[in-house]
């Protein structure tokens, strides 16, 4: 194995740069290193001005999402040696405005996530006494979708989100479905009003790349298609039984 590998990292300083540029760094190629280790090496020893987000370094916090050679990845879960002999291109997450270097502005996602009402909605205002009971089968209906760590790799992979700034996006819709499918939740109709919309579920053209890049196997594409089927069934029901309760 070679001694070093070259990283080509995007640099952008909002105060002084008009547009991003690329800067190269040589880092040691250690077999157990991930791209995040290489970035931290640069920041500690080579160029302290390099800025990037990270936290848990073990694939559960969702902070370190970036584009590595054009693919959305968690840099804490992407081995440097897999890219030997390099160079490795590290760029900020696609489809988001760049704040600085490798850091993107995710406020659009946070707004859309809030619209999905990602919490248990109950009809009564105070919770019932005791805990909610749920069988393993009921848990199974939504558990996969609850594994989302909001890393936004799916947004970087989704061409519709890149093309249409109003589209809700994979994670926000999948998380709405996570609650819709939860037996403890009673808010499906409330979410349907928001999401059964051309910027919600109907904006999705089932490209499927979101599911391919998801590091937690959430399968947001599957969640959205399930949601589409449910929405269609509800629409048919409302045609046949206009006065029926939703």
């Amino acid at each position, binding site marked *: 194995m070679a001694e070093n590998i070259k990283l080509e990292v995007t640099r*952008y300083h*909002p*105060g002084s*740069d008009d*547009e*991003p540029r690329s800067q190269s760094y040589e880092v040691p190629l250690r077999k157990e290193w991930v791209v995040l280790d290489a970035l931290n090496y640069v920041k500690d020893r080579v160029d302290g001005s390099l800025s990037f987000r990270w936290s848990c370094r073990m694939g559960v916090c969702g902070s370190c999402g970036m584009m590595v050679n*054009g693919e959305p990845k968690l840099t804490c879960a992407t081995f440097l040696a897999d890219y030997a002999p390099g160079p490795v291109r590290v760029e900020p997450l*696609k*489809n988001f*405005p*760049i*704040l*600085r270097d490798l850091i993107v*502005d995710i406020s659009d996602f946070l707004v859309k996530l809030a619209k999905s009402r990602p919490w248990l909605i109950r009809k009564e205002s105070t919770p019932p006494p005791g805990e909610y009971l749920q069988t*393993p*089968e009921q848990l*199974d*209906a939504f558990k996969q979708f609850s594994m989302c760590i909001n890393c936004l790799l799916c947004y970087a992979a989704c*061409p519709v989100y*890149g*093309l249409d700034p109003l589209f809700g996006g994979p994670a926000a819709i999948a998380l709405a479905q996570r609650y819709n499918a939860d037996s403890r939740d009673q808010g499906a109709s409330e979410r349907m009003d928001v999401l059964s919309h051309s910027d919600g579920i109907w904006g999705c*053209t*089932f*490209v*499927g*790349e979101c599911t*391919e890049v998801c590091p937690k196997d959430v*399968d947001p*594409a*599957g969640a959205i*298609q*399930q949601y*589409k*089927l449910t929405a269609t069934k509800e629409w048919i029901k409302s045609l046949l039984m206009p006065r029926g309760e939703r």
Partner: protein
Amino acid sequence: MAVPVEYVPKTFRPRLSTYWWLGRWPYLRFILRELSSVSVAWFVVVTLVQIRALKRGPASYLAFQGWMRHPVLIVLNAIAFFFVIFHAVTWFNLAPKAMAVRLGGKRVPSLMIALPNYVAWAVVSAGVAWILLRG
């Protein structure tokens, strides 16, 4: 004393290229899948021409058959056939994703939902072929 003002950084918004779909194979495959709909429309056009020729009499239908034998038409129909198959296969493979069917508490694997679609396809195709070819 200066009034504090919120600093709003000048974010850079990269523009998506018109050729974004050439950047990665999965994107190109997606666009090709969507373009298979053009072959579907082509088939309808050819079929309507066929029906009209049929109505106009044997001479007209003979001319239609001659037209269909033209190398350009053969090539177009071969391409269309490939894309129509591509449509059918991607359609049947993706349909199970929308249906989270549970049997006895466990999620039915996608294959078990796609398979009946393929079987139906084979049965229907055989039926149509039999009706058309026995005459």
